[in-house]
């Protein structure tokens, strides 16, 4: 049973939040940034920068959580996020005028730099960069600390920012609820732990998972692949025919796994299985789910020896069985048992194959920010760029925007070469072409 907390400044972390703190620890141990992600918006025009700065200041005042810190309860060791009593807004907006002839290349360089810039200790866990292009359009990138936001929560915050711009005065308490510390459901947590343990044992029987290897750890890089309305419709049709109706997610996972198997085959290693931890949303659709992580994982695996049909069937079966046994929910609950552990131990735990694997996959199939305009300008595009922890070092993030699909490949330097990247980058666009 969950109990509501009276102290609104103290937000106890869920089990998944504690795992995310472990990933954050791993990111900080390697050169580069924090465990953070960008939401990048292409805007048709350029918003008023001073008004934007004012709205970002209001966000900081409205949500003191943004300037909070991780703490632990001295008695039961339960970790929580402590919001300060008062917040003095800081300047978190960087404005850049792009003058370079190759605008796209220049934007990519600035955004890659932004992705790899850690949050400073005395600054809020939110930063913004506005790139103003010579043609009058602009790119707005917001950098979110994953310890405080998941992808859907990030989009929810963009909606709040848009509301502030329009002059609305939303009530902060609508967007955050202090819960926990979940100290009264031990039996349920152990039962969930048993479900997780059974799944892990079943995966171990499949073979040794392939991993991409060590990275140089300097920089996280990304590329964006976009499927327009026609290509996405063709992809969905093919998924319907080959994997079954409404089975787009297992089809996409199988397509990515096939590309990964081709990469391992080229490397000549003894490739047995790929494990791709796929994040799934546990959101209830409430407004107060803006902060913290409300997702879990399905470990999707496939053997190198499978045919395309076998792999599709296997992914559909795994998807169905994980949902039937409530594995994602069980994992989120079982992780609560880990909270008394020290952060370095959790950091090691978060690198285990079950949770790290070969490559991480995420699909955001529902838009939390669905407005056609942001800051008074038409939104041409919206996509997410996650920073991937050193293990697994490679991630595929997909988000639907209207009738289109955006795919971001994100990786740490040295983990994958250019030829291998091309195999992965072309996999989903090729699947959208007629066979």
């Amino acid at each position, binding site marked *: 049973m969950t109990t509501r907390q009276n102290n609104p400044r103290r937000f106890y972390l869920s089990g998944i939040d504690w795992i995310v703190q472990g990933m954050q620890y791993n990111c900080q141990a390697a050169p580069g940034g924090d465990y953070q992600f960008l939401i990048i918006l292409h805007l048709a025009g350029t918003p008023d920068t001073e008004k934007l700065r004012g709205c970002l200041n209001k966000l900081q005042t409205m949500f003191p959580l943004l300037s909070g810190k991780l703490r632990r309860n001295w008695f039961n060791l339960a970790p929580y996020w402590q919001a300060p009593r008062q917040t003095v807004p800081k300047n978190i907006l960087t404005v850049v005028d792009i003058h370079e002839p190759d605008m796209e290349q220049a934007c990519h360089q600035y955004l890659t730099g932004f992705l790899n810039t850690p949050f400073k200790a005395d600054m809020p866990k939110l930063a913004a960069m506005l790139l103003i292009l010579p043609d009058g359009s602009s790119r707005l990138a917001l950098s979110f600390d994953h310890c405080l936001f998941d992808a859907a929560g990030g989009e929810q915050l963009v909606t709040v920012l848009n509301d502030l711009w329009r002059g609305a005065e939303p009530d902060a308490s609508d967007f955050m609820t202090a819960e926990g510390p979940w100290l009264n459901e031990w039996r349920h947590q152990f039962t969930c732990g048993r479900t997780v343990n059974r799944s892990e044992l079943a995966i171990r029987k499949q073979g040794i998972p392939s991993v991409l290897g060590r990275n140089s750890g300097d920089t996280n890089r990304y590329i964006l692949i976009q499927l327009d309305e026609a290509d996405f419709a063709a992809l969905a049709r093919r998924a319907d025919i080959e994997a079954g*109706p409404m089975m787009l997610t297992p089809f996409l996972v199988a397509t990515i796994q096939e590309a990964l198997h081709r990469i391992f085959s080229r490397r000549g290693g003894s490739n047995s299985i790929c494990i791709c931890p796929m994040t799934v949303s546990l959101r209830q659709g409430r407004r107060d789910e803006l902060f913290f992580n409300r997702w879990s994982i399905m470990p999707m695996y496939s053997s190198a020896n499978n045919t395309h049909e076998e792999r599709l069937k296997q992914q559909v079966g795994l998807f169905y069985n994980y949902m039937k046994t409530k594995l994602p929910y069980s994992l989120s609950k079982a992780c609560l048992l880990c909270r008394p552990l020290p952060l370095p131990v959790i950091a090691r735990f978060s690198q285990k194959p079950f949770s790290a694997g070969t490559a991480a996959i995420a699909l955001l199939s529902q838009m939390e920010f669905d407005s056609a305009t942001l800051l008074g300008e038409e939104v041409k595009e919206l996509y997410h760029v996650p920073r991937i922890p050193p293990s697994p070092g490679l991630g595929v993030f997909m988000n639907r925007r209207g009738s289109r699909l955006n795919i971001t490949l994100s990786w740490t330097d040295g983990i994958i070469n250019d030829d291998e990247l091309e195999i992965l980058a072309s996999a989903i666009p090729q699947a959208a072409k007629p066979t």
Partner: protein
Amino acid sequence: MSKTAEIQDFLNKEVAMILRLKESDVNENSSLNDLGINSMAFVELLIAIENKFGVQLIQAGITQTDLSSLKALALRIEQEL
């Protein structure tokens, strides 16, 4: 209540709950595609159907035609019973 009506009523309630819609927004002519269902929500629905009626539609080879409306889905479930 006939079996078809019972299945139809169950589907309307279950789809509304999974997609967080009002029950009045869901009727026998609603298409799952139009209601905005995704893979995860669809699998949730299939599991609810299996738990209630013991029918594994995924094994039975469900098709896009069965999903054209909730009425078509109800008829398919009835066929499998």
